[in-house]
């Protein structure tokens, strides 16, 4: 029976594709400001983004895209990791054989494994670089203290994820790196040995350690990391978006594109240069990747397409980088783990080599004391440095002391890692790498 609201069965059938499409994608690709706004709050995947983004946030030289690169690497890791899980078995008898099969017979197996490995190393490095960027732009200061602490926790979780994954190939490299790494943890006073026993499930690395590390690596830690990443993004919104220089909020006082806007103002009456309210005069065409039409006095642009374009670009560059590296360099796979034959020397994963180098001088201070102080220092940083100066600018002169100290901190760690990687040979003696 046809009515105005129910067109009739045949019509329904003919219109099915169109109606189905429309029920899925309710808003067409935006062509107006209203449409652009709607992308940010009617789409599930996009609705954590603000409707408008400050231009400073989008400047490539401001963030270097490091946070997005870290997220992209995490996405690559989750996808490749899930795929690898279909062929890997966490048993001491089978693990190494499965790795051989992944390299030999699984279609795209070696590519996926390489991508997973290099993304993992990349993520540790990029997350740390992101931390450096946040520090150098003073973006940990109020009101972003808690987000900074969250970030430090995310850094530690990243280390732990990489560490637990390091064991899974069950080759000589994996086995002895984890033996060495967990032994460093055992140096903690009172609880060190207990913690090591609970982590490994036995006194030495074996099947128990393998299954525990596997569960941590594929289930527990990714769940925790995903949750905290979500909170990390939420906090960005609540803290008012990414940091920016205070005087960049209004274009007239601190123009984002000084030459262009100065040229703009040149043609106006001298009085106009001091105007702080929105002008409705005709503005000239200005170069640059972001649309200037619709600029409001607060120097923001619509997230669609500007922010999403930037994020997609970061993701694409990251994926390209991972692909190229994975095709050029094969991830290592050494002989099957042999608990009776440690290699000489035995090295922890590269991000722990700085610790191992320090441990060779003092077991407690190198392995526990100094790292704990470093982490504590990082966590307490925004509560100890309450000066609001220099936020939103790289290497601000007003923060000379803080910036210098941090650079020293980064360089020291880098030097220690370089020594541990290249300058330590058999019996941990000093060798020249050339």
């Amino acid at each position: 029976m046809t009515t105005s609201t129910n067109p009739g069965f045949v019509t329904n059938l003919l219109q099915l594709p169109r109606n189905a499409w429309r029920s899925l994608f309710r808003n067409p690709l935006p062509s107006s400001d209203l449409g652009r706004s709607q992308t940010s709050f009617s789409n599930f995947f996009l609705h954590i983004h603000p409707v408008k983004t400050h231009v400073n946030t989008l400047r490539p030289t401001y963030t270097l895209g490091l946070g997005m690169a870290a997220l992209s690497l995490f996405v690559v890791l989750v996808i490749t990791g899930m795929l690898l899980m279909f062929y890997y078995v966490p048993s001491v008898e089978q693990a190494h054989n499965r790795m051989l099969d992944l390299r030999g017979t699984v279609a795209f197996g070696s590519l996926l494994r390489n991508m997973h490995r290099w993304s993992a190393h990349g993520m540790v490095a990029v997350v740390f670089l992101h931390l450096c960027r946040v520090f150098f732009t003073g973006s940990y200061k109020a009101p972003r203290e808690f987000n900074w602490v969250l970030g430090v926790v995310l850094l530690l979780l990243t280390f732990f994820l990489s560490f637990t994954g390091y064991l899974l190939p069950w080759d000589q490299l994996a086995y002895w790196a984890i033996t060495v790494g967990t032994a460093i943890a055992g140096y903690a006073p009172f609880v060190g040995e207990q913690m090591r026993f609970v982590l490994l499930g036995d006194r030495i690395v074996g099947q128990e350690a393998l299954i525990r590390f596997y569960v941590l690596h594929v289930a527990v830690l990714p769940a925790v990391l995903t949750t905290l990443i979500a909170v990390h993004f939420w906090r960005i919104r609540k803290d008012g978006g990414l940091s920016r220089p205070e005087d960049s909020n209004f274009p007239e006082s601190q123009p984002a594109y000084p030459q262009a806007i100065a040229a703009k103002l040149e043609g106006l009456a001298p009085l106009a240069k001091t105007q702080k309210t929105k002008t409705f005069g005709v503005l000239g065409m200005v170069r640059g990747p972001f649309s200037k039409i619709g600029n409001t006095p607060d120097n923001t642009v619509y997230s669609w397409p500007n922010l999403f374009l930037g994020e997609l670009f970061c993701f694409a560059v990251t994926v390209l980088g991972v692909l190229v590296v994975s095709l050029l360099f094969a991830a290592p796979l050494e002989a099957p783990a042999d608990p009776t034959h440690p290699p000489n020397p035995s090295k922890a994963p590269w991000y722990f080599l700085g610790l191992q180098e320090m441990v060779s001088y003092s077991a407690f201070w190198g392995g526990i004391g100094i790292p704990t102080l470093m982490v504590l220092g990082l966590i307490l940083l925004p509560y100890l440095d309450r000066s609001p100066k220099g936020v939103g600018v790289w290497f601000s002169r007003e923060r000379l002391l803080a910036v210098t100290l941090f650079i020293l901190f980064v360089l020291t760690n880098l030097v220690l890692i370089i020594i541990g990687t290249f300058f330590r040979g058999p019996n941990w003696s000093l060798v020249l790498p050339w």
Partner: protein
Amino acid sequence: MTVSTERIQDRAATVTRRRALALTSVFGLLGAGVVAGLSNLLFFRPRVTYGEPSRFRIGKPEAFPLGTRLPMTRQRVTIIRTAAGIAAISNTCTHLGCVVATTDVGFACPCHGSRFDPDGSVLGGPAPRPLSWFELSLSPNGEVEVDTSKPVPQGSYLKV
């Protein structure tokens, strides 16, 4: 009026009753959460392990004549016999847990170059502590038993 007075009293009673119920619920659930958390600690701590047992028998004392320095690879101990008796020295390097090799002058660790004298004292390298000595006992059937979960001071022999 009596009705309104009663209502007010009822309401007051309801409020405190609600409060009491809320507190009870909080106490119950929060308490359960705390107990669950503690239970997790117990859960994760293994009560049995599947590697080499920490207590094992090595044989009758006669099987280890004077001068023996026998490394037992699987159990990660070296059995020594001197005039003072039998002893068991750990083969696990105290630096970062590698297996030390037995040399003619003691022990040497291949991972980072720690060197130990025949008693396990550190001669060089990054090892922070000497090699552990383990407790030995004589079991009723006459065999010597080693317990690697019980370290004893250096130089403690089982007099047989």
